[in-house]
């Protein structure tokens, strides 16, 4: 392919012929490394916002009805009269918290940052297949983030129908005030977000398929790339369905159609819509929604595979089984969406089918866990902060994964659907795993992103506070849920009037949870400080700080357009030759040719 042209390009920049302007370098950049960093910055901002929102509503849950200066400081007298969060705004905060966490932090932020940064660097390409589309993808993401953020300040409040925005609640501004302007902004923001995600994903797929360097066969790809690749395919197949769900909802809201509405009387007003089905929306939503949790999770698993192998100084155990399970998870994730709908009145037989397919996913997931554990076995583990986070991820993936077995069993789901048990489950398996994976990625590839090192000690402190905080928040939620506490409740003291002992338990646990949440949130200040401080003042990064095999560590520390100054590297082996017997060093980069008589793994 156009290697020659690229080469020339590479040299160009090296000599600094055309000075890049500030705008084309930092703002409308088409360089994948810069775009990755832009995604990261935006996601960090959105993540902080979402975390803050969760602290606001957690205060209400722990101390319902008590005045809080903190709340009135952030929410003012409209949404927190006398320092007590209003009922409607509680739902608004929960909704925007969930939406930002899932879509903006863990989809845009995680895939956007690391697919952009790592795909070209690890497959040995000069840049993404289309730099321009890549730039567009970021700017769409940026616009959608701004819209979502702005929706918090609308007079009638942000969307309040939960992150799943089920109609009719989300379709009727008279049913809840957030379904007015707030929901309109939500829908526009998400539509633009979907466009961003689609453009990005197509770019990733094309790059992985077409721009691999010489010798980089699919079975020599690092598992990160496999994960990003499958993630992108999931995104391309499922996000358009969410878009269609959103478009139909917009039509119901604005054009008087009745896709989702039928026989409704709201606030005394009898509507004429007839024949629509709210369940149609749920099918469409969850056809995206379930793959979405793997869109969030797979990149985190990919990153941690790489990090665990590097820092155990051992090859990842069962490389092919790992690829196989990524593919299996990807495929199965499309045929399990109905497990979110067991109690919607869906045909029970259909329910049985979804039970079966859902429980099948546990098998490839178990394989992944055992392979991680075996990778640690007889390793020589180096505790970089990234390694700590990666091990934390495996733990949360186990702990959150096993409760999925209960929820997938429809007969049991009847008793715990939509309770805090579910909240505990998905926060641990999806939220925490993906967040820990993302942190692992940031610590590990920070030297590649900024050419600087982050502080290790602060990283340690950040990890331990985060892990303890996260378990402290989400573990007790299982018990609250099993006692029957529905989710999305503004105030659990309603229990007092009918079930005293459960009331006491919930109040106790809610306080514990909130205290851990505040500790965990404060712990993130360590990260933010370390991150920004190191960007400007961190010590300079060496060429290959973690003694790693993959190609990105063969590029110069100072970023250049086109990644490699000279020729593109040639790949001779898989990326996991760590501690291979008979080798001098305990790592053999992919660019080192096989020695005479050496077997490829």
């Amino acid at each position: 392919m156009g290697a020659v042209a690229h080469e020339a390009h590479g040299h160009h920049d090296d000599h600094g012929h055309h000075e890049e302007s500030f705008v084309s370098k930092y703002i409308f950049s088409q360089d994948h490394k810069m775009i990755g960093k832009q995604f990261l910055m935006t996601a960090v901002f959105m993540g902080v916002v979402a975390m803050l929102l969760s602290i606001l509503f957690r205060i209400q849950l722990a101390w319902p009805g008590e005045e809080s200066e903190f709340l009135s400081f952030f929410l003012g007298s409209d949404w927190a009269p006398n320092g007590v969060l209003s009922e409607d705004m509680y739902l608004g905060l929960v909704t925007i918290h969930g939406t930002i966490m899932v879509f903006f932090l863990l989809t845009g932020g995680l895939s956007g940052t690391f697919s952009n940064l790592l795909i070209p660097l690890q497959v040995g390409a000069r840049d993404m297949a289309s730099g321009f589309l890549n730039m567009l993808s970021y700017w769409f993401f940026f616009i959608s983030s701004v819209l979502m953020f702005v929706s918090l300040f609308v007079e009638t409040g942000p969307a309040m129908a939960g992150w799943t925005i089920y109609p009719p609640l989300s379709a009727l501004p008279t049913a809840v005030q957030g379904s007015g302007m707030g929901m309109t902004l939500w829908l526009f923001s998400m539509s633009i977000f979907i466009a961003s995600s689609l453009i990005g994903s197509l770019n990733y797929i094309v790059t992985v398929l077409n721009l691999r360097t010489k010798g980089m066969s699919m079975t020599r790809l690092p598992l990160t790339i496999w994960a990003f690749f499958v993630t992108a395919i999931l995104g391309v197949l499922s996000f358009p369905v969410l878009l269609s769900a959103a478009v139909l909802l917009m039509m119901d809201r604005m054009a008087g159609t009745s896709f989702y509405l039928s026989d409704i009387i709201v606030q005394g007003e009898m509507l004429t819509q007839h024949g629509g089905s709210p369940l149609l929306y749920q099918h469409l939503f969850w056809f995206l929604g379930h793959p979405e949790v793997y869109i969030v999770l797979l990149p985190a698993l990919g990153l941690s595979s790489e990090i665990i192998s590097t820092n155990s100084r051992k090859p990842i155990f069962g490389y092919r089984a790992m690829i196989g399970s990524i593919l299996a998870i990807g495929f199965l994730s499309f045929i399990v969406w109905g497990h979110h709908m067991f109690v919607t009145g869906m045909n029970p037989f259909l329910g049985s089918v979804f039970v079966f397919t859902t429980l099948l996913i546990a098998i490839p997931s178990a394989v992944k866990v055992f392979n991680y554990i075996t990778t640690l076995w007889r390793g020589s583990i180096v505790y970089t902060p990234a390694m700590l986070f990666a091990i934390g991820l495996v733990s949360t993936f186990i702990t959150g994964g096993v409760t999925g077995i209960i929820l997938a069993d429809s007969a049991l789901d009847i008793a715990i659907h939509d309770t805090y048990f579910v909240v505990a489950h998905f926060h641990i398996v999806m939220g925490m795993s993906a967040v820990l994976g993302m942190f692992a990625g940031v610590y590990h590839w920070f030297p590649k992103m900024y050419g600087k090192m982050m502080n290790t000690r602060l990283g340690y402190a950040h990890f331990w506070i985060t892990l303890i905080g996260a378990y402290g928040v989400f573990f007790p939620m299982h018990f609250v849920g099993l006692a029957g506490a529905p989710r999305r409740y503004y105030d659990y003291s309603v229990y007092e009037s009918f079930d005293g002992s459960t009331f006491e338990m919930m109040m106790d646990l809610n306080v514990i949870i909130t205290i851990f949440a505040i500790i965990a949130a404060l712990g993130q200040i360590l990260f933010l400080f370390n991150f920004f401080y190191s960007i400007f003042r961190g010590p300079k990064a060496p060429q290959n700080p973690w003694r790693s095999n993959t190609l990105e560590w063969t590029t110069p520390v100072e970023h250049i357009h086109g990644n490699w100054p000279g020729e593109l590297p040639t790949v001779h082996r898989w990326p996991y030759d760590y501690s291979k017997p008979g080798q001098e060093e305990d790592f053999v980069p992919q660019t080192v040719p096989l020695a005479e008589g050496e077997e490829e793994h």
Partner: protein
Amino acid sequence: MAKLFVLLVIILGVIALAQLMRVYELSSKLTNKKENEITNRDNRLNAKLMLGFMLFLFIGFIWLMLKYGWTGRGPAASVHGEQTDWLLNLNFVIIIIVFFLTNALLFVFAWKYVKKPGVPAFYYPHNNKLEMVWTVIPAIVLAVIIILGLRSWNEVTDDAKDDAIRVELFSYQFNWNARYAGVDNKLGKYDYKLTDDASNPLALMTTETIDKSIELMTSGPNGIEDLEAKLNDPKLVFSDKIRTEMEERLARKEQLIRLLHQMKARHTGETDKQAMDDFITDTLFLCKGENYEFTFRSKDVIHSAYIPHLRAQMNTVPGAITRFKLTPSMTTQEMREEKNDENFNYILMCNKICGGAHYNMNMIVVVLDKAEYKAWWKLKTEGAKDPANSKMYTTFPATFGESYYKTLQSAQEEMQKELDAAKVAEEVEGEEGEDAEGGEVEGAPAA
């Protein structure tokens, strides 16, 4: 003031952190320490912390189990719920074993195989046999889980017995009503267009309610005539927004009135009787050991009827009917003794986000024993004998239900009072000779 203080503390904290970093940087420059080279001391420290964290996790879990009951639930109070709990416990045993085992392996390895100078890692890229083992074992365990789970699921979702008592649960922002099928055990027909909050809140369909709806829609307050008059009155001035709203409302009503006339033309009145004997309560009364077939309706948005103690849950979907069957197996009184809490009540809670007061949308559920239930049933169905005063559903909101709201005890007293009052009334009526009928009550559940 407090805000300022907090702000100050945070700013000072960050400055202190920055100073610490300076010192740290200088000292690492002196000792030539690099961030990417992890010292053995740091490695060992983190390895120990891994083990420590494992203990924290395990002990924390066990503490929670001891303190809040093995999995935080009270006993199940329905027949299928007992089976659900059995299965739930089995599944919990399995996953708790897996939880302990795999987390222990993870953290123990993380502790044990920390880098030791001079000990190289073991190059071990794959082992097909081992991988086979941990594919097949989970598959077998899951097969068991699936089979048991589906067996239970099929039973729970199966059709109800023919003689099951039919009750409809009606949901709206932000409350619940129960509609009992009455003596004939057949729920009357309904159509949302017949809703009138004052006289027919559940939109039951009878010749009379259709006529009434047509009349209200045509000439009631804010009816078509009213709206037309207002819109055409040159003396009234509306803002554009309000005028558009009124025009839209008028257009809707004109569409609806056509549908009502069609309904009237088709309605034969044959099914009126089924609706006539239905009665509505705002507390759900159930009888221990009796089979129930619930159907669910929603007036506005999706809600969900969740009765945690009965292990029951079903969404209510506007425009559709959903169903769930169950058989209570413990009375409220028995559960109170079990929980040692005499104010305890079963509860039906809304479990699908539905607006601001979602958290406060619940209905007390009272499970009575056979004798109590029979007495209650008798009272609620008595009027149905006489067609003239049989429109029980029009006595909404059912004051009787309300008095049951607080506790069973006061409810029982109330019931006794009402029973007495009814008896007195009956005697008076008998004396006046207006009501010859009396005596037996039909349709009470077979004992």
